[in-house]
């Protein structure tokens, strides 16, 4: 189930709010958890058991770590051993689940390709096993795992209530596409949180603007991007047009989902972290990653980059760590060499900029050009993110660089791509990206005109949503 769907808005959301607010405050974790499991199980009922398994393991390991911490006071080696074992079990379980469901097919394919290339056909692993990726597994395994790590690091107290912990792992507003809410960020809210009309009103504003960004901006941009990326041949101008359209699509799609998640969280009394901070206004790639998908980049920084040694082991190791973290970050997005290459581009750029003192190589240009150059680099990276496979990515890159196939069919594309609807939408996307306030800032002061604006955005979005069938959601598949 996605937020920008008829089912969610007309049926699930009213039901969820009704049940939630009709339940006494101290028992609200129960309906919230059950509703979240319903939300999650909608796409594939069997996978609720997987999430439940991950939840049970991490809940038990959290308690085990806490016990180890108590034991440590009078038997340090045993206490530390208990904590380490529990942490390892939690991390291994979560990464195994992620590895199996997300990367097994990829691993088998690459193993077979290697074996075939080496001429050892007999050693191929021909299996009928085709594993279906559980929805949101990348998000909730990271989130659940962060709990045991935080408890191990003593950055969070263990959660004694299984229901509260299950509620944290499964909470529907941020379950399938983030933001990745780390346990220590939300621990207290699980048991005590405020509910007020101001908070609810701001939640409505977040949700309305998020829905509008998704339906009115991301979807039309997606149509342009799909047309270009799915085309057999595309000329250079159209390829750039499609590429920028995809850049806007993914930003407005994902940040819209985060806005809606934050808005729904506010309606339920939760405050989730900011996930986007105008990333396309960044003048460098380093800055870009301080603004894009913040909850993931912070997670990778705190649990991976720092664990690898961060910048404490010399320049060369720092560069290697940056590249490695981004490669893993790329793979986190999907089991494909495209994502690895995308991660490599960003890792390489981060390392390069680290050599320049965290500044871009074009730092001497005026700010507007630095922002433009960063946007172009990020956009080139999106080619690998969007393309179905490496040959398509390569072919599209050729088109962007002016070496595409062209032809009569390519010339036809203009009849589709430059309709007023798409030109206006892309122009609006550019204005919103570089000239409009962020949702957080816009909603900080809710005047009557702003409230009316949110209302109009909500109604128009609902009208368009009811009548248009094109409504993909990019991060749903991660």
């Amino acid at each position, binding site marked *: 189930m996605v937020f920008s769907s008829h089912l969610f808005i007309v049926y699930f959301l009213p039901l969820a709010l009704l049940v939630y607010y009709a339940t006494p405050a101290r028992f609200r974790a129960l309906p919230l958890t059950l509703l979240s499991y319903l939300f999650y199980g909608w796409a594939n009922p069997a996978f609720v058991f997987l999430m439940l398994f991950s939840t049970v393991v991490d809940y038990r390991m959290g308690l085990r770590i806490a016990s180890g911490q108590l034991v440590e006071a009078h038997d340090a080696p045993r206490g530390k051993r208990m904590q380490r074992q529990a942490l390892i079990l939690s991390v291994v379980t979560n990464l195994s689940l992620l590895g199996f469901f997300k990367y097994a097919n990829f691993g088998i394919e690459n193993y077979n390709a290697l074996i075939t290339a080496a001429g050892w056909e007999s050693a191929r692993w021909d299996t009928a096993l085709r594993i279906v990726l559980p929805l949101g597994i990348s998000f909730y395994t990271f989130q659940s795992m962060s709990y045991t790590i935080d408890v191990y690091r003593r950055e969070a107290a263990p959660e004694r209530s299984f229901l509260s912990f299950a509620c944290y792992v499964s909470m529907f507003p941020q379950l399938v596409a983030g933001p990745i809410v780390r346990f220590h960020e939300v621990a207290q809210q699980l048991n005590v949180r405020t509910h007020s009309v101001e908070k609810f009103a701001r939640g409505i504003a977040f949700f309305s603007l998020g829905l509008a960004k998704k339906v009115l901006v991301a979807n039309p941009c997606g149509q342009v991007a799909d047309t270009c990326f*799915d085309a*057999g041949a595309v000329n250079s101008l159209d390829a750039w047009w499609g590429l920028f359209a995809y850049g806007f699509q993914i930003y407005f799609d994902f940040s819209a989902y985060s806005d809606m998640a934050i808005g729904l969280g506010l309606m339920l009394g939760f405050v989730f972290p900011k996930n986007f901070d105008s990333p396309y206004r960044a003048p460098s790639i380093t800055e870009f990653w301080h603004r894009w998908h913040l909850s993931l980049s912070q997670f990778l920084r705190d649990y991976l980059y720092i664990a690898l040694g961060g910048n404490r082991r010399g320049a060369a190791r720092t560069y290697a760590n940056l590249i490695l973290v981004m490669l893993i970050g790329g793979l986190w997005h999907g089991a494909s060499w495209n994502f690895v290459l995308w991660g490599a581009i960003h890792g390489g750029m981060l390392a390069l900029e680290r050599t320049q003192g965290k500044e871009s190589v074009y730092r001497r240009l005026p700010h507007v050009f630095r922002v433009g150059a960063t946007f172009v680099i990020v956009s080139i990276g999106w080619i690998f993110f969007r393309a179905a496979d490496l040959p398509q990515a390569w072919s599209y890159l050729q088109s962007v660089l002016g070496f595409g196939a062209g032809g009569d*069919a390519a010339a*036809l594309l203009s*009849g589709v791509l430059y309709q007023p609807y798409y030109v206006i939408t892309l122009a609006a996307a550019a204005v919103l990206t570089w000239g409009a306030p962020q949702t957080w800032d816009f909603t900080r002061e809710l*005047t009557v005109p702003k409230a009316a604006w949110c209302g109009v955005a909500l109604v128009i979005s609902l*009208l368009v949503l009811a009548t248009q069938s094109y409504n993909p959601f990019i991060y749903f598949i991660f």
Partner: protein
Amino acid sequence: MTHHPTHREAQAAAEVGKTAVRRSVAIGMCVLFVLLLVSLFGWELLHRRADGMRGGTYLLDATQGLVRSVGHFPSQVASGGLWEGLGQSNHELKTQLTVLESGLKMEAPWRLPLLTPMNRGLSGVLGASNANVYMGKEDWLFYGPALRHVLGRSVVTASPDAMEVLLAFQETLAARGIALVIVPIPSKVSLYPDRLSGRVQADVVPRNQGYTAWMEAYRAAGGVAFDPTPALMEARAAGAAYLRRDSHWTPQGVDYSAKALADLLEERVDFSENARRIYRHGKPETVAYPGDLATMLYPGEASGTPMDEVVIAPVEDGDGVPWEPERGSEVLLLGDSFTNIYSQAALGWGTGAGFAEQLSLHLQRPVDRIAQNDHGAYAARHRLQASVAQGEDLLAHTRVVVYEFAVRELSWGDWKPNRHMVPAAGNVAPRAPDGAMTVSGHVVARSLPPAPRSVPYKDCLISVLLEPESGDGEKILFYAHGMVDHQWTAATNWRVGDRITVSLTPWADVPHDLESLNRMDLEGEALHDRTPWWYPEGGKVVTLIDPDTPPPVSEVMNHRESLSALITRKEEAGEMVISGQAEWLYFVPALRSLSVGEFWGAAAPAVSRARNAQWADPLPAIIDFHQQLVTANITLLLVPVPTKAAVYPEHLGAPLAEGVEALAGSQGAHRRVLEVLRESGVSVVDLQPLFESLPDNTLAYCKTDTHWSPAGAALAAREVARVIRELPGVALPERERFRRQDETLNIQGDLAVLAGRTEAAETLPFGRVGREEGGQLVPVMPDRDSPILLIGDSHNLVFHAGGDMHATEGGLPDLLALELGMAVDLVAVRGSGATTPRINLARRGDQLAGKNVVIWCFSAREFTESVTGWRTIPVIP
């Protein structure tokens, strides 16, 4: 433990604290938001409750599915083990949830009313495309999948199975000495690129980038392909090759392509000389329609959408009989909607002028046709293969199979593998000897139609798998109307597990226009080789008025308008039967026929059910037939059977009865038309006064059936025989002696079946007629050489044809034989007796040689309710 300075809840307080919002604004926002959610939710619930029949389809389906999938779990575990059982249950559950979600959106009450204005703004003004329609210049519309095929990835990589499947099909045919010619119809944008993009010239033909390579490879592998593009370019130069707001080609495009294809076939195929026929173009007809793309884009506003006009040239044979596909032809055309576009009335562009017709004309040879809208990659091919596997060898005389499909199928088509084409023991279901059966059983599976207006066609059939309560346990697969004119029929309301009783006829006997409708097949390869049946009742489910409850005040009627309003409400609710008092059942279309008032002349198009307004008026067809017979010195006796309600209005209940009685009296339209016909010289038998004169204990009609009773048929036979004997110049041969043996007959009428009232049965006095031979009664068979010919609808078959017609040897043909002392010739059909019997007569080709009298007996409701209408047919040219 590390202390976090910015705790989330603290941040929340800070953030909210920083939110400068007046409490009244915040409360206002919350109230409006909650109101919006509640009103959307409430609207949907109320709508679904009000529209109980269609509105809850998905909701109920999914709910049942959820319960069923959980219920299946133990048996699935028992048969397949825990994991397989879990997997299957989960798969079922997932499917039901998906159906539910898409259904809820599709059936949202505000969706359809919003679609047109939203699309007018987004697409019409701003040029936004949706999944199905792309906007071009000067109001040209392009079909999404067809356009994306041209723009998209190479067909060589997109559909690697297509070539393999086609070559294997060719090989199978070649083994029987039959050639295969494929005809991929180019996308509209390939012929009209300049209408989409200013960057492309009109004389350029953009194609999918892999198309040329694909065709070269196909030809190199021995395949024969006909590319109609040059012919279509000529058509464009001469006028138009494609329709502006429709995804299909123009009549000119069809004609030019058929001509070029005919030339190729003449060159490549060794046809037999003696199979030549004369075909010619009939009278051109102008047809206007908004187009399938416009209809998809602006649903619900077809009347406000500009109409495109084309002139079609229907094809007829040398005798002027409209073209029909002919089994056993040397050419078999497999096709999709490009074949059907000017053949199938449901597509909106007229009939009789499609691809098969034009190909037949240019070849001057008969052509057989299997065409189904959509799914050109496999639908027609599989239907041919299934027919052959079922023992109906459609290829016995075929020399060439022409396989037409939209070229986009090479990108998006489901190139399902070929099926075996050898009849296998057990696969060949015997044809029902009487052509029909009535069966009760439980629905095992049922497909659903697509969302109305989400597809370029407005009618489609659904498949139902039924487990009969009796018999050998073999499940029965049948088709029913699932969507008619963009509306789901009530057959979609059948749910898995429902017990239903249906009257089915063999699928092989259905009219050609039904065969070519899109069908939503059930999943499961094993089902495809089953011999399907057809549920001819239009897919209507019946809800009955409680007979003991008087009609509500709102339904009381004293005049025609009120009756019309009631009928409209009943029909919209899918109710085809009205239950009267004392277990009398009435057929809603018959009541409608009474309610419409004058139905001939200028009034006809407005009140007739005929799909083609040109054939709405019954008088020209009847008078034309009468005149044809006069030229051959044959007398026509017209015997319209009055509606049951006209004779027995009193059982409808007091208020309703008064209204019907007034409409069915001597000043009623059904009686007045007889006078009009008499004034035109047609001999008419008015049965209504006779039926009304019967004593109360002798019923002229069955209570639970649409037809007359044996007593009614006997009275009609007696009257018709009397009239014939009094006709001047009609010499009947010497009387033969037949005997009538009285007995009783228990029936459950078609209205009871339609109403699902299995308990409703009746016992009728019945007389069996036959020749006395050795103390036994031997049935009187219809005699082709008889001077008396009886034609018409099922009133001529009831109690004569057995099966769903209840009995044999006691119908009108038998009773006429008894009265006249001679067997009569019979040409009768189930369904409308308006036109089809005359087409069948024309097909006999004997110009009614040896006939003195033709009795045309049909239900009077067909004056207005015949969807095929009243065509003039040259029976005696």
